[in-house]
């Protein structure tokens, strides 16, 4: 990857944030398996498990605040994402969608939590793994439901299209289902987290650098920090939205595979 050096015009000595800022050194000694993103992913699993175990432990008809919060998230995934999109068979997929949503959401929001401040999804390998899971799930349910022959026939030869159109349509449909869908699913999440983190770095590090400059530059520096804080809230919006879109698209792909006609 080539680094982004377009910002280096401002002032001497300012090192603009680049892709190198994402390659963090190992936390413990020289063990390359203990970098910050990996530890954050483990931490997120722990966090989610403990939260939902506590939220569901003493389930009561009149819910406590914790139970209400946990059930609110669960109801959102089950009703708005799974039921409205997948249809009558949705209950089978709720555990997967729910895990996906909470995992992506917590790992994204790590990007703006003070002290952690690194979205683990800005390392492309994590979204790749999630997209591979989704890829396997929606093809598996499609093949189980319709049989392997009918499933591929529906993908390759869309019914109700003039025969000559298949020359163009068949390669495009195959590429959509087997290359474009998993690739864009993972890259969308990665690119948003990566660009968001870089954006925050530009404003915060830039503000820090302006503070060290002459008096005129010092006066501008608060604006850079204010922008950084404003963009942090914007990032929170983007992080929640990306978790929602990732889960929604997974639900839509599953729904498409289950539907009788594509």
């Amino acid at each position, binding site marked *: 990857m080539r680094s*982004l050096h377009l910002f280096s015009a401002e002032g001497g000595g300012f090192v603009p944030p680049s892709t190198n800022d994402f390659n963090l050194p190992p936390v413990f000694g020289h063990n390359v398996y203990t970098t910050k993103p990996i530890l954050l992913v483990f931490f997120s699993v722990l966090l989610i498990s403990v939260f939902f175990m506590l939220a569901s432990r003493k389930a009561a008809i009149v819910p406590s605040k914790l139970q209400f919060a946990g059930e609110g998230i669960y109801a959102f995934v089950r009703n708005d994402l799974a039921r409205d999109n997948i249809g009558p068979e949705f209950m089978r997929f709720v555990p997967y969608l729910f895990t996906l949503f909470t995992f992506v959401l917590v790992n994204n929001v790590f990007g703006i939590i003070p002290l952690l401040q690194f979205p683990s999804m800005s390392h492309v390998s994590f979204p790749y793994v999630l997209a591979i899971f989704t890829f396997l799930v929606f093809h598996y349910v499609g093949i189980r439901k319709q049989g392997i022959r009918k499933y591929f026939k529906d993908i390759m030869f869309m019914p109700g299209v003039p025969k000559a159109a298949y020359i163009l349509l068949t390669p495009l449909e195959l590429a959509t289902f087997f290359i474009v869908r998993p690739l864009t699913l993972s890259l969308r999440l990665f690119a948003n987290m990566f660009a968001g983190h870089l954006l925050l770095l530009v404003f915060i590090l830039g503000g820090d650098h302006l503070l060290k400059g002459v008096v005129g530059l010092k006066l501008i520096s608060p604006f850079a920090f204010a922008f950084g804080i404003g963009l942090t809230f914007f990032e929170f919006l983007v992080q929640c939205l990306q978790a929602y879109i990732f889960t929604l*698209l997974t639900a839509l792909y599953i729904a498409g595979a289950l539907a009788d006609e594509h």
Partner: protein
Amino acid sequence: MKGTLNLVGYGLSAIGPAIATGMIFAAYISGVARQPEARSVLQPIAFLGFALAEALALFGLVLAFVL
């Protein structure tokens, strides 16, 4: 000032998906405004269209780094 022209090209290529995304959501909003009960039907269609349009921008991003 140093840098690669790839990024300028990526900026230009992102114009298309940007306009497309704007149009998709404009249509979605006006559809829901005219018929609020159609929201749940329109929402997955809007997001699927948005995902398709954004896929082009993502290809551009990948090529900006790879080439």
